[in-house]
């Protein structure tokens, strides 16, 4: 065996804290063992590695402007994420990355931003939201629109409350349905409904969408109705089963594109006509 210099070699990192977000999701704060920065940009992901359980792609949920600690919001969905949920602070895990094309910040600067997330999509979008908070001079205005299935499924409730209190951000969220025993008294309905409440300057507005596959088409239709047409106006991050993260394994291909390396962030016009993309 020789010293590692491999696309596939994970780097060790230490689990610093674990906190619950919902009954299914936890937030993991991590740091590379060598103390270096992850070096990510908002919108990128890492491959999380646990020996014996292979790897899973996870979006980085905080901004690179927040120091060397990085955060992952992970839903318990299978064996690897189940094992991760059982880990305690101090545990060692591996990561590869960061990988993928990030949100195109150059194209967003100076614009009124519509940051739209559904479900777990708030995790990668939170990285961009924090970046906007830390660099307020770069953006004209920031609207955050978030939809979850139920009040219990809302991610980052403390952040949502803080963003709503912020004078620099306009944050709105909604849930699809309210259980009978809930004391939730916020908005209900699907995401496009939040869009119709906004006063936008469509000529100077860009949208960023991250969410589950069924979210894209109705939200895009509403954005177009509001006047966001033409190229480089709507950016979206697609979810796929990335296994290698470097464009080799084939599991995240979308026609001739590879989601892990050509994406996961795309301009709408790059993928809209591709079968199975949206």
């Amino acid at each position: 065996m020789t010293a590692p210099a491999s696309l596939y070699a994970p780097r060790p990192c230490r689990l610093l804290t674990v906190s619950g977000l919902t009954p299914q999701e936890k937030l993991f704060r991590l740091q590379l063992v060598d103390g270096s920065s992850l070096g990510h940009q908002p919108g990128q992901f890492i491959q999380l590695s646990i020996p014996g359980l292979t790897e899973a792609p996870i979006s980085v949920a905080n901004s690179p402007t927040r120091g060397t600690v990085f955060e992952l919001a992970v839903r318990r969905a299978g064996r690897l994420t189940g094992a991760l949920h059982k880990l305690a602070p101090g545990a060692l895990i591996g990561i590869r990355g960061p990988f993928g094309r990030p949100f195109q910040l150059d194209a967003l600067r100076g614009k009124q931003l519509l940051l739209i997330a559904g479900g777990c999509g708030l995790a990668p979008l939170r990285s961009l939201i924090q970046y906007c908070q830390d660099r307020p001079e770069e953006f004209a205005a920031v609207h955050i629109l978030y939809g979850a299935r139920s009040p219990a499924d809302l991610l980052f409730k403390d952040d949502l409350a803080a963003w709503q209190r912020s004078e620099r951000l306009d944050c709105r969220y909604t849930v699809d349905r309210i259980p009978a025993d809930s004391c939730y008294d916020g908005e209900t309905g699907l995401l496009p409904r939040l869009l119709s409440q906004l006063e936008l300057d469509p000529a100077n507005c860009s949208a960023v969408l991250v969410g589950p596959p069924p979210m894209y088409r109705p939200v895009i239709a509403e954005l177009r109705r509001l006047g966001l047409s033409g190229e480089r106006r709507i950016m979206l991050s697609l979810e796929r089963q990335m296994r290698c993260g470097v464009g080799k394994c084939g599991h995240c291909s979308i026609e001739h594109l590879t989601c892990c390396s050509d994406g996961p962030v795309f301009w709408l016009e790059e993928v809209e006509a591709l079968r199975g993309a949206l």
Partner: protein
Amino acid sequence: MLKRLEEKDFLCLLERIAERWQLLVPQRMSDGSRLLLPWQGGLPVLAGPPLQRKPTEVFFPQLELLLELDDAGGVALPNPPEKPPALLGLDHLDLAGIAFLDRFFLSPPTDDAYLRRRRGALLVGVSGLAGAQGETLPPLEGECDLELILAPDGLLAHPHTARGTELLEGFAEAAPDKLAALDRNATELLPEILLKAARLLQEERVPEDFWEEIAARCIACGGCNFACPTCSCFGVQDRTFGKRTERSRLWDSCQLDAFMREASGHNPLGTETLRTRRRIYHKLVADPLRWGEPGCVACGRCDRACPTGIGMFALCEELVRTCDRHGS
């Protein structure tokens, strides 16, 4: 410089190669098929049916150790082979398959696991009267280090690289007219039927119900993918032994339901119809867009492997017939 190889010269060449490389040569099996196997002495079977298994598996094997992990976060990579491989007896289609995988795995970011096996490898092609029924195989155009040419009156050899030239040093020269009796015209890689199918796919002229009919015949065995010399998709598996974990990759098939299924349950290739279309579209349309070349070298292995007759050739013939019937 063209050389003439008598039987003793050819054996000498094999010995020269075997000194520095792990030499694999075509050998005939009891069922008449030929496989690339380690050279044990004697003459290889240069002429005959195409090699049963894809030669690209030497560089991208079905199961390959990527690395080892330990509990403390340590990572160790496998050592490269002591001797790089030498593949002898490759025809123009075998070499096209290797060139395709080289471009795929060695394009940045370079796949180090592929490079570990590919680095220093020697490729010896074959042309001339080496077809299954004695038909002429087309000349090779530099995709190999050394070209063996089966001519009517003996074996010739032509180097394409400095290594090839070095290996042929000392053998008798042959007059260029020794090739005169052979058809040395290069052929197009893809037959017309595949080119026509590719055009129909590019122009979105294939009716949807065509894919449904083909998909109904797919039994999802994955044989087409596993036989294909340019298929590169892989999954990853871990095996743990005490505190040590071996992480390996293994061939995967886009014809299997779980290929793209995500933890959320979302599956962009959630039906056999989508998966069948993807297999063909990927080779004939997506790969040319991505790599400038189709991902099919027309070797016919998927047609021979498919138990239900929907390999690339059979499917494309049916696709063209269907589109002709529809007037598209």
